């Protein structure tokens, strides 16, 4: 059972709600173990604040095993912190050094307003999915699963796109706050599968329209989203989405 000996300075964004201004506030935490996750370090901070009679820092988190996509801290200028391919909850304190100062901010994007402290509202993502991120099949309509063979390469590619956890790191890191990586991952997953073909072009048009109306920016191909994505979602998905979006314009009205 390791008790730690790291002492850290935290600069944490505090903001009461979306109507008030926020600011960075300094905190010290001591005796941090390198085996703690970043969020467990925040648990220590919050316990300390509660014991002092102050309000703890609000942050989103749930599964703490890197899959639910709820945690969302912007750490030292990078979404989910300094390590590639991990979420904040899977970032461990051994990635930091004793004496470090760590700046922690919420995701910043017009489409993701701050709810409180480090928690933001990502419901725009749900609305983009509701606009077309599905295959229109009611329960009970399915044929036998193996009546539709799908080449393994294609199925694997669809799976890789489907690995997106909807955390929003791509938006947070993008200088344009573009959601193209997120949106294109869902579009690709379904465009790569035979089940997704009937609605393929209609889907890309309605999801892109919803994405634009939510206030996300455009893509200028800097690739920060791919670099920061904790699940390694590829930029190729954006290219695929753009191709489908362009193709949709040339396809007859009935098909779209």
């Amino acid at each position, binding site marked *: *059972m*390791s008790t730690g000996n790291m002492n850290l300075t935290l600069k944490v964004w505090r903001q*009461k709600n979306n109507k008030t201004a926020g600011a960075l506030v300094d905190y010290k935490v001591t005796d941090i*173990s390198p*085996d*703690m*996750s970043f969020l*467990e370090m925040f*648990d*220590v901070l919050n316990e300390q604040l*509660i*014991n002092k009679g102050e*309000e*703890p820092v*609000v942050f989103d988190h*749930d*599964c*703490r*095993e890197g*899959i*639910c*996509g*709820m945690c969302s801290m912007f750490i030292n200028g990078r979404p989910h912190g300094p390590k590639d*391919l991990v979420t904040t909850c*899977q970032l*461990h304190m051994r990635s930091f050094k004793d004496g470090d100062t760590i700046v922690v901010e919420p995701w910043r994007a017009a489409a993701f307003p701050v*709810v*409180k402290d480090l928690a933001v509202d*990502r*419901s725009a*993502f*749900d609305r983009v*999915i*509701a606009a077309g*991120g*599905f*295959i229109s*099949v009611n*329960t*009970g*309509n*399915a*044929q036998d*699963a*193996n009546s*539709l*063979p*799908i*080449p*393994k390469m294609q*199925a*694997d590619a*669809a799976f890789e796109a*489907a*690995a997106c956890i*909807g955390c929003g790191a791509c938006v947070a890191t993008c200088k344009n706050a573009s959601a193209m990586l997120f949106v294109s991952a869902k579009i690709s*997953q379904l465009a790569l*599968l035979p*089940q*997704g073909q009937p609605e393929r072009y209609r889907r890309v048009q309605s999801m892109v329209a919803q994405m634009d109306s939510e206030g996300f920016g455009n893509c200028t191909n800097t690739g920060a989203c791919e670099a920061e994505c904790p699940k390694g979602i590829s930029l190729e998905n954006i290219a695929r989405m753009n191709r489908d979006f362009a193709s949709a314009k040339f396809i007859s009205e009935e098909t779209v």
Partner: protein
Amino acid sequence: MSDINSNIPEGELTQKWTKFKSSVALVNPSNKRSIEVIVVGSGLAGASAAATLAEMGYKVKCFCFQDSPRRAHSIAAQGGINAAKNYQNDGDSTYRLFYDTIKGGDYRAREANVHRLAEVSTNIIDQCVAQGVPLAREYGGLLDNRSFGGTQVQRTFYAAGQTGQQLLLGAYSALERQIGMGKVEMYTRHEMLEVVKIDGKARGIIARNLITGQLERHFGHAVVLGTGGYGNVFYLSTNAMGSNVTAAWKAHKQGAYFANPCYTQIHPTCIPVSGDHQSKLTLMSESLRNDGRIWVPKKKDDNRKPTDIPEDERDYYLERRYPAFGNLVPRDVASRAAKERCDAGYGVGASKLAVYLDFKANTERYGKIEASKAGNHNPDKETCMRLGTAVIKEKYGNLFDMYAQITGENPYETPMRIYPAVHYTMGGLWVDYNLMTSVPGLYCTGEANFSDHGANRLGASALMQGLADGYFVLPYTIGAYLSKEISVKAIPTDHPAFVEAEAKAKGILDTLINIKGTKSVDHFHKRLGLIMWDKCGMSRSEQGLKQAIEEIRALRAEFWRDVRVPGTSDELNTELEKAGRVADFIELGELMCIDALNRNESCGGHFREEYQTEEGEALRDDVNYAYVAAWEFKEGVNFELHKEELKFENIKVAQRSYK
């Protein structure tokens, strides 16, 4: 001896569900439009039910406490989902899935429910593939399967180590489609705090908007709870931090019986605790037991590196004790065997509370196959390990990465250290065959109910049950109730029952805020967890349980005297949310101990030290305990036992053997 009616249809087991479906009353489409259903929870069981009910034409409101329905903890399920497809031509059938589940549950589940589950299991796979869920495939383009514990066939469908994620995103997309069409109203960041009952029937809920703190009243002709399990009563578990029992517990306090609360599943393969700071435990999927061999050193306190311990000085204790099933024995058996070895002094790692899960033998075997495919029939060891590692990486890459990230060790080079941890709860709200609780109009689906897994759930069966309930069972069975409710107009929420329920919820929130004590919510939660783990965990005894009940009662009193909840109730206040949940966990913890104390036998996940065979296996008492213990909440915090007798007409009840 039953004093409650499970409403199991008459007739032969294999025909019950078919007959039920063809004869259950229907609600015509124009009536469906004016019938409202509330679904609480958006995991596999909630999202699939909400989507399907909306597709059928009902007006649906769905609630989740997370910021999006896609975050529900079903998403974290790793290994797979069972279905009796027999795609592997290995002799699988509906009956075998039924049989394995009843046996795996140590003969403490209801035959009719489990058979129905096995029947609809195949529809789930079809439905998910139609939705575009990218399940793993073979090169021929057909679906792949793997093995899970407690079975001798390969019936588990999967999507790498992210099966739950992919299935949940399928259900989520079906739900979002209905939201987009205006057929489901979604309430995210809302927590249900009370069930509203009018004339004895569930007619709505009180929910707290977690951002504004406002309490809201919502009417429904029926209410469905798909709110997950209560494993977080142990503080440390593989559940998400927010997973809680509150919705189910509030329903319990409104008259819904709570069944078999002591049946908790301790999963054998989790990453061991690393320190006091630990906030949750991480599972390493059961699917790893396909390819990993579990062992401890034969010598006590052997401090050598695992890779330095030669083959003949290792004790592959599962293979030794259970030659027929080996590393694939059910979870309860594997967990107890690990505890037995560690308690006897053979544990490994700094805490000595861990065993090894070793992939070396299978890595080498896979490497040999790969080399042979490439024409090299006599590969050296290094080639085998290199090629085999690539195979292992494709199968379990994300799990290995997760292990490395959490422990700082490389599992491709050194065996994983694992130890059992709380993972799933088989107990839950009592439901009849229709998934209705003992409160008319209040339904319960998925892990939140008790119905299908008996005293121990088999791997890859939780996803199956959640989706079976939500897609294929509840949407039919709820018709039996709603068809009689078509003349009921929406009840205005200024009805006294809503006013009273809201006042009650507000009273609890105000009390919690006003205690202004000295200790944090987590402080109490951790203490509760320790009591539960020590005395109501992997093994239980009469004396320990009696002590635990006293300790929990004292803890409850202290909590209500000394908890500190900063902030106010009219804002986003995560400490207030946690406080309400921990208050409910404390009451539940007591009931779990009472139930464990009542059950003078060992079965599945419930192991009473007094009741074991000479070899240390669970010893059931079918004469006295072949019943579902359904507890009714009574004023104060008291509980009255009701019994539902379990009748086994199609399976011969036997001592479970995996030897």
